[in-house]
Each structure stands twice: as C-alpha cells, then as structure tokens.
C-alpha cells in the first residue's frame, strides 16, 4: 500500500538542498581526507542523509539537538554553517569549536546545537535534560537525542528513556539505525528489537531512513505530539551506511547489500520532485552546482583561516 508521494515545493527544495549539502560535503571530505589536511577522525553519513534532513526540517533554532560521534549530517541539517564545520575539520580557530573539538565535537549555539559527544550513548541523556529544562521553565522548545542503533546497547539509553517517560518530557529520540556498530551487525549487539523495546516506554514510530519524505512525515507527527504535551516519542529510522565506520572509504562488509541507485535518499527525492513536476531536471542540477560552490567557498575559508596557537592551552 504505497502512499502518494507528495510534498510542498518549499519543503521539497529545502530537503533536497540540505541532503545535497551533506552528501556533497561528505564526498569532498572523503576526497581530501587522504591528504591529511584534516587531522581528526571523520564519521561520514553518506546514504543516511534522509534522517537528519527529514527530522531537522521540523526543528526550530530553539530546539536543542544533542549528537554523538556521527555529527556532520545532523549538524548541517540543524543549521551549522558549512564553513564553520570545514574550518573545524581543518583544525582552524574559525571552526565552530575553535579547533578544540574536531569532527566529533561540533557546537552551534545560535542554531540549537549545544554540543556533541564521542562517547557512545551519553548524549542521549543530554537531550532529555533539554526536555526537562523546557518543562521546568515553561518553555516550548523540544530536546532531541540523536544516536545510532548500537547506542541502544548502553545502559544510559535505558535510563534516559525511562526518565523521559516518567516525567513525560518534550523529547524526541531519533535512532539512526544503520544496522552496524563499526563492523558488528545488529544481530550481534542487540538481543532485542529496537522499536519494540522503545515501545515499552513510550510512543514509538518507524520511518524508512533512506526515504526523506517518510522521515519528514513521521517526524512531523512525532513532534506535533510532543509539542502538544503528549510526552516523549521514539522515532526509529532504519537506514544504510555506505562508508566505513570511520574514514574516507566505501564499506566492503559482505552482505551490506547496498544498491547506490535504489537506496539513495537523494535520488529517491529527486524522482518524486520530477514525477510530481515540482522541479525540472535543470533546477535539480542547479541545486547540485550551487551546493558545490558553497563547498568550494567553505574550503577556501577553512584553508585561509589561522591555526590556534599553543598559548591557547593556558588554563582559563
């Protein structure tokens, strides 16, 4: 039972632009990475862009998003300017974390990104804390906890869901389930079914994490429920990781079963936009080109930015 695939033009274009921004920036990073200009690990999310972009379309700058190690996609989707990301990867003072954070520790206070963490699981609790702050302050922002399938192994996952549910906090849990923890498949790291377990605590929804329209629709429903005081919601998004866990190479895990034509969230959306005559092929190409220019500019910015100085290690 296929639903009719429709979307407003402004939404559709936004989703496409942000997905392209993430994809093309990631491809560029992958191309540059072997040259060692970026002295920091990179966890790319090529193939997973739909999750970040579909959810973030519904978030405001006031909503607080807490990320783990796979940061680039959701950070850009939330609004982190690309030059600040690139400068951070290049270890320059103009980076979003002033070169102190690196790839796994991105921040953008203006756009509701109060930081991200490289210790798997812990940041789930931080999103819950944002939800608690919203509730106690009588504010209307939402806390968003963003994590992968294997973060559900960690005890803090269980503790965080329990507390959010007990307190009926305005929190969206987004599980970007790419089926792997590094090279370990889900069957080896989780004895439970993730959405089924989550459902023991709270309303749980699932959306195909390679289909931005599906994510966009479910995230919209989830956030509407949360914002209307309905308590936390768990959004489970099965998706596919095309790259190795870390670094610039495509992943070669046997049985990964990725078909870059069929599984590509960008191609899927472009097809809908074309089929529903919201955009023409020329316009799509225009999006790609304009993103490419943004990337060139961001890299130029990073490359021309100053490095920090050792004197900055002085303790404040």
């Amino acid at each position: 039972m296929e639903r009719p695939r429709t979307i407003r033009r402004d939404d559709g274009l936004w989703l496409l632009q942000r997905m392209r921004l993430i994809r093309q920036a990631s491809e560029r990073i992958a191309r540059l990475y072997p040259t060692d200009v970026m002295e920091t690990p990179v966890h790319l999310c090529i193939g997973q862009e739909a999750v970040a972009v579909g959810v973030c379309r519904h978030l405001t700058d006031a909503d607080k998003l807490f990320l783990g190690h796979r940061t680039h996609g959701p950070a850009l989707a939330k609004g982190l300017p690309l030059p600040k990301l690139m400068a951070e990867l290049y270890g320059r003072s103009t980076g979003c974390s002033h070169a102190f954070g690196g790839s796994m520790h991105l921040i953008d206070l203006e756009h509701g990104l109060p930081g991200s963490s490289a210790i798997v699981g812990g940041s789930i609790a931080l999103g819950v804390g944002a939800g608690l702050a919203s509730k106690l302050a009588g504010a209307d922002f939402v806390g968003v906890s963003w994590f992968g399938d294997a973060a559900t192994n960690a005890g803090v996952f269980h503790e965080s869901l329990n507390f959010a549910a007990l307190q009926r906090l305005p929190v969206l849990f987004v599980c970007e389930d790419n089926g792997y923890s590094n090279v370990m498949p889900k069957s080896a790291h989780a004895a439970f079914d993730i959405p089924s377990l989550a459902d023991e605590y709270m309303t749980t929804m699932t959306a195909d994490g390679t289909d931005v329209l599906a994510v966009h629709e479910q995230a919209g429903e989830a956030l509407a429920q949360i914002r209307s005081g309905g308590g936390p919601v768990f959004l489970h998004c099965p998706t596919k990781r095309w790259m190795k866990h870390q670094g610039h190479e495509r992943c070669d895990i046997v049985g990964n079963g990725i078909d870059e034509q069929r599984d590509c969230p960008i191609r899927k959306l472009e097809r809908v936009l074309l089929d529903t005559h919201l955009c023409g092929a020329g316009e799509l190409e225009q999006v790609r080109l304009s993103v490419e220019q943004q990337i060139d500019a961001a890299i130029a910015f990073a490359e021309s930015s100053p490095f920090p100085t050792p004197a900055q290690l002085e303790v404040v």
Partner: protein
Amino acid sequence: MPWSRFDSNYTAPTGGRRITYCEALREGIDQAMGNDQRVFAIGLDADDKFGVFGSMSNLSFPERVLGTPISENAMTGVALGAALSGLRPIHVHLRVDFMLTAMDQIVNYVAKWQDMFDHQVKVPLVIRAIVGRGWGCGAQHSQTLHGWFAHIPGLKVVTPATPYDAKGLLLSAVADDSPVLFLEHRWLYKNTGDVPEAIYTLPLGKANVLHRGERLTVVASSLAAIHALTAIEAHGLDVDLIDPRTIKPLDLDTIVASVQRTGKLCVVDYDFPFGGFGAEVCAAVTERAFASLQTPPTRIQFPDRGMPSSGVLERAYYQTPDRLAAAFGALIEGAPVARDLIGAGA
C-alpha cells in the same frame, strides 16, 4: 543578575544565630532557589520526606525539586543537558559512592564540555554528594574521593567544614558558571555554628585559616579540619591550621606563605593515600617553598584499602583528634611520627 546582590563575607561571624551544618545547607539551597528561578534540585530521594539527611526537607519550591530513579549516570547527563539549556541544576547524591555509576558523564561530559568547545558555553551545574563513613556500611558506602575528582581538569571541588562555609560555599557553587562538585562529610551534619540568615557567598579558591601558630602548618579540609582544630585547641598546640575550603581551585598562596613561616607541613587528608590531595599539597609546597622546609612534609591519610565494616576497624581507619594531636606534637618536636598515626598505607 540575581547572583550579584549577595554579601560577601569571608570570616565566620560570632555570636549570631547557631544552626547545624545540615540546616545551613538547606537554607543555602532554599535561598539559591528563591534567588533565581533557574535553579532546581534533582536526585535520588531529593524529594522524599527525609530529604537527603534533612538537607532538602521542606524546601520552598517543591515544584523545582525532583526525585529520580536509580539512574545516576543518565541523571547526570540530564542535569548537564538542562544546564546547557539555560537552567542551573543542583544534582544530589546520598553517597559519593553512587556517583561512580555516573563517571562517564562526570569525567567525559561535564568536566570536558567547556574545554571541548573552547568555553563558548556555560555549565552551571552543582553536584552535591555526601562523603565519608556511615555506620558499618563497608567499603562501598564510605569513600571521600575529593582528591580523585580534583585530578580531572574541569571540575571544581568544594569541601565545606563548618555550617558557615557550607552555606556560603553552596551559594557560590550555584552561582558559578562551571561545574562544581560539592562534597559534604556525613559526620559534619549535626555540627553547629554561627550562620547569617542573609544570603552570602564565600569565594571558591580562598582558604580559611582556622588557627594561628608558628611551629607547624597543618592543611586539612572537611571533617579532618574539624578534627585537627579540636586537637590543636585541646592541646594548645602552636600550629597554623589552614582549611583550603576548596580542593580545586587550591589556595596554594596561603599554604605556602604559612610554610615559609613555620618551616613544617602536615596534610591531614581523610582519603586514600596514593596521589590525591595530600600528595598534591606536599608536592606543590615543596616545589614552591623548598628552601623554607625544615623537615619533609608529612601526610596523614587512610590506609591503602577499602573501609571495613566492623566498628572496631572503622574507628581505627579514621584518625581521632587525640591521635592527630600526638602526630602534630611529634612533628613540632622533630620526633618520628608513629606509623599508625599516618595510616597503615603510607
């Protein structure tokens, strides 16, 4: 800003209102919450009728006092997330030992968050915990660990010894824009002292000289400071007694100035002996006042093993004012200090 209208007053008043350490804490928390509605308290049993050994009973803003499940790790992350979202949490633990379940959050998250983002964010988070021996509770309910936490960059560590300090330092901790661990010794809770009713703060990083003397500098915090003071007063010892009040930042200047006068240093540190606070004070003072030292600095600490349960052993594990007096006396006279006065592990 609500935090700028406090009196600051660094010496304990006398002849005023006498209340317990516990009541002083409670009053400080209550006033912090009244002074700034961004302040809230969270923790296991924070909201129950016993109110964390009485330190949180009958607070004026119960809607900002939250009990939690036994989930100390996530709750620390929740407090951090709330601090990053504009609030000023006080997270409380009935025992510091329970905080060990939250070390990922405390060390990797709370302590690092400002450094990782080059201090673009504030982390106004206070973590309170009760430390020290209870009633034969054994090794998992009796740790102190102040020096251990101080080892981690990004954490301030506060160890009030008196009711006056408890309230003033608590209010400073809540006013601080960086993470503060606030460690309260269980055996101080019923001690009384003069405490102003008004709201006031004491600076973090400024020691308190509890006794003036010329022949030995003793550095001791929390319960150890009270025991040392009792020892000195009961035996009329000519000792400079310095309570650093905060383990970190550490007021080395005051300690070094004293050692330059007395030529001798003894640190009484109710904590495990390897590394930690005692070692830091001895090493740092030796670095800065080597020429003044007449004898090597001495540490009086716990034995290098977990706390046993039986009362007989528990009492031997801690020092007493009498045993401290004997040790100080020996140091003043330049006599060797008996091994059991230093702690079996030293």
